[in-house]
């Protein structure tokens, strides 16, 4: 307990849709808020999607206004390419150490003109495109990135490699000195002398919105390691008009149009033996949506969905499933035992438990509805923050029913997938809810003492 004034300033960790909503609501409520995002842009996973169920609106259209608002809001301090490293103090008086990774680009000078990332010769796998396309070593993750200022990926930059080589810290062949970005930048924004730094901030409340990642496909070895076996996010990128194929659905192995596409639900979910015991809650719906979008893209193609149960419990969801079934997507109730390559096809061995028959499909493309898991590094962060988590690594809320947004640490709240599998509407609701909890705290707290009585 202390008598320091309650700091009415918040921190939100994670710039996906839950964090974005929380930040905007806190800022609109009249308080300052810092948003820390570890990747170079906010947007999270949602910005990767083609269209979102059940209304089929485009995330780029509905999300970018929120992202831009964050960049321009007077109450918001946006820190991308940054990670929370250390936390001290308690509700009302948290001291946070944030690692601001070096962008090697002076954002004050940079105009976002794009010369550097258009001319950079080093091509690496694009995280935003889930490995389905390349990006350059100096890059913005996607065209609508916020901020629209690039970072230099020091793991892949040729000049950084050159410097390491010259300092005797790198083996092998001498890398080229390159520095093309620096030579071409019209405003001299490339700054090799920029280094990682620790930024200290004081805040009164925190929202953890660190989101999810998909379980790696390698966890299910019977579904082959093959270029034509994709996870859900990779197929979203293929369907997306802004994706690597501009929305043209192709078979990655040879670029042909896939005529038989198999979607497999519960890859790792509801499988305590090999995967995770819980239901990932979004796969039934997004696989149905993907099957429908595939039918729109390839009208003479056939889509099959293997499922255990169809879980369509959100508003308008069951109606959406019915629409997908009526549009000719074939639903097969059963699991798939194996996927393997045979010539230019993928053979899918499955079962249709309604007819009691074995099913074999020669498919062009297989899409796996992989289980969702807490995003990479969540556990390490939660340990730093002193927050309890469950067996799966999701944040353990204080009370499953009456304190769903509170963590075990007073003044720290949770929103979105960090708390458990959920869809976009629920993530947004939780983002708003967590912001509401922060605003309540700020409204009631003249001092940290009183605040703690409230939390």
């Amino acid at each position, binding site marked *: 307990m202390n008598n320091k004034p309650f700091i009415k300033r918040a921190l939100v960790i994670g710039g996906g849709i839950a964090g974005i909503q929380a930040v905007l609501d806190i800022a609109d409520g009249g308080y300052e808020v810092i948003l820390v995002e570890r990747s170079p842009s906010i947007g999270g996973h949602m910005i990767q999607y083609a269209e979102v169920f059940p209304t089929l609106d485009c995330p780029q259209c509905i999300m970018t206004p929120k992202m831009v608002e964050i960049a321009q809001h007077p109450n918001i301090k946006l820190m991308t390419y940054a990670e929370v490293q250390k936390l001290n103090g308690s509700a009302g008086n948290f001291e946070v150490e944030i690692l601001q990774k070096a962008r090697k680009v002076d954002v004050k000078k940079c105009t976002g003109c794009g010369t550097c990332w258009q001319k950079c010769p080093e091509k690496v796998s694009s995280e935003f495109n889930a490995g389905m396309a390349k990006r350059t070593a100096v890059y913005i993750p996607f065209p609508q990135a916020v901020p629209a200022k690039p970072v230099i990926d020091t793991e892949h930059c040729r000049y950084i490699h050159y410097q390491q080589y010259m300092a005797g810290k790198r083996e092998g062949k001498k890398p080229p000195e390159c520095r093309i970005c620096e030579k071409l930048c019209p405003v001299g924004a490339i700054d090799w002398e920029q280094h990682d730094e620790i930024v200290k901030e004081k805040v009164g409340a925190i929202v953890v919105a660190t989101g999810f990642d998909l379980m790696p496909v390698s966890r299910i*070895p*019977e579904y*082959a390691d093959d270029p034509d076996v994709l996870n859900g996010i990779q197929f979203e990128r293929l369907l997306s008009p802004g994706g690597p194929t501009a929305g043209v659905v192709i078979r990655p192995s040879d670029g042909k149009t896939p005529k038989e596409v198999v979607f497999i639900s519960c890859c790792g979910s509801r499988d305590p033996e090999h995967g995770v015991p819980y239901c990932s809650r979004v796969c039934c719906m997004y696989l149905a949506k993907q099957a429908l979008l595939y039918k729109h893209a390839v009208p003479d193609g056939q889509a099959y969905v293997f499922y255990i149960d169809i879980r369509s419990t959100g508003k308008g969801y069951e109606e959406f499933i019915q629409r997908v079934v009526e549009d000719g997507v074939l639903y097969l109730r059963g699991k798939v035992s194996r996927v*393997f390559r*045979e010539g230019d096809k993928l053979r899918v061995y499955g079962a249709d438990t309604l007819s009691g028959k074995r099913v074999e499909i020669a498919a062009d493309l297989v899409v796996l509805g992989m289980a969702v898991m807490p995003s990479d590094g969540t556990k390490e962060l939660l340990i730093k923050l002193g927050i309890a988590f469950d067996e799966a690594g999701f944040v353990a809320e204080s009370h499953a029913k009456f304190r769903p947004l509170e963590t075990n640490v007073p003044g720290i709240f949770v929103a979105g997938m960090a708390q458990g599998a959920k869809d976009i509407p629920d993530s947004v609701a939780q983002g708003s809810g967590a912001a509401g909890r922060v605003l309540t705290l700020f409204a009631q707290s003249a001092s940290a003492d009183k605040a703690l009585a409230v939390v």
Partner: protein
Amino acid sequence: MDLAYYPGCTLKTRAKNFETSALAAMSALGINLVELPRWNCCGTVYSLAEDDLIHHVAAVRNLIRVKEQGKNKVVTLCAFCYNTLKRANLVMKDSPDKRYAINIFMDEEPDYYGEVETAHLLQVLRDDVGWEKIAGRVKHPLKDLKIVGYYGCTLLRPQSVAIDSVERPTILQDLLKALGGTAVDFPFATECCGAFQIVNNRDIITERTAAILGSAAKSGAEALAVSCPLCEYNLRQTQSSTKQPQSGVPVMPALYFTQLMALAFGLDLAVCGFEENSPETRAWLKNKGLIS
């Protein structure tokens, strides 16, 4: 080094070449496989009926023989024996009620608590000998031989007794690579060959083995390396009974991995007993310059 060795019935009858090649190859690696005294049938198939404890008695008796020798590990060659011994041992280790009933029933034997580890020879090669040592012993590398490892079921299922990844095993391929061969991956490596259906429903075997051989041929393989005498028998039988060109079943030798070891180690070919493999085997080996 001496290792307790449980042969099982098939290795003394229909798969003698598996045993002779294994004993010779292991001795070339400095390991003596010492046959257990007074061994009996393993029970052949592990009984899945919860109360069918009498079925495990044969397997447990063999494990008691191992213990009597002052050993805590026994090696098998036959994949079926491996499976039954290993699973019966898990019962004795993990199910106190069943263990009690079986021990009481065998009152002429000392009580047994699952102390003996059952290992398949492939595990010994991987874990105790190591691929490097095996590669070092190779005199005639099996180069230019494209061979698939065919595992069948009982080395990998159920998961609790699997000698390798259940879905993506590599242990046979790793051995083939150590022997200087080209290990070809093929999707049917863990498909069932039809097993005992050979007795009453040959059609199933024909369908299964045709699929396995077809897939191996499509993957570019010329031969299969096997570790189960029943798989070998089924693959051989199908090929000789459907040899008509129109059947579409590719002709492909199925060799025990120990025969390939003996070949690569340059041992006396008499230990390989190739005359017991399919008739095409010798011709293929000759064609490849491995035998004269």
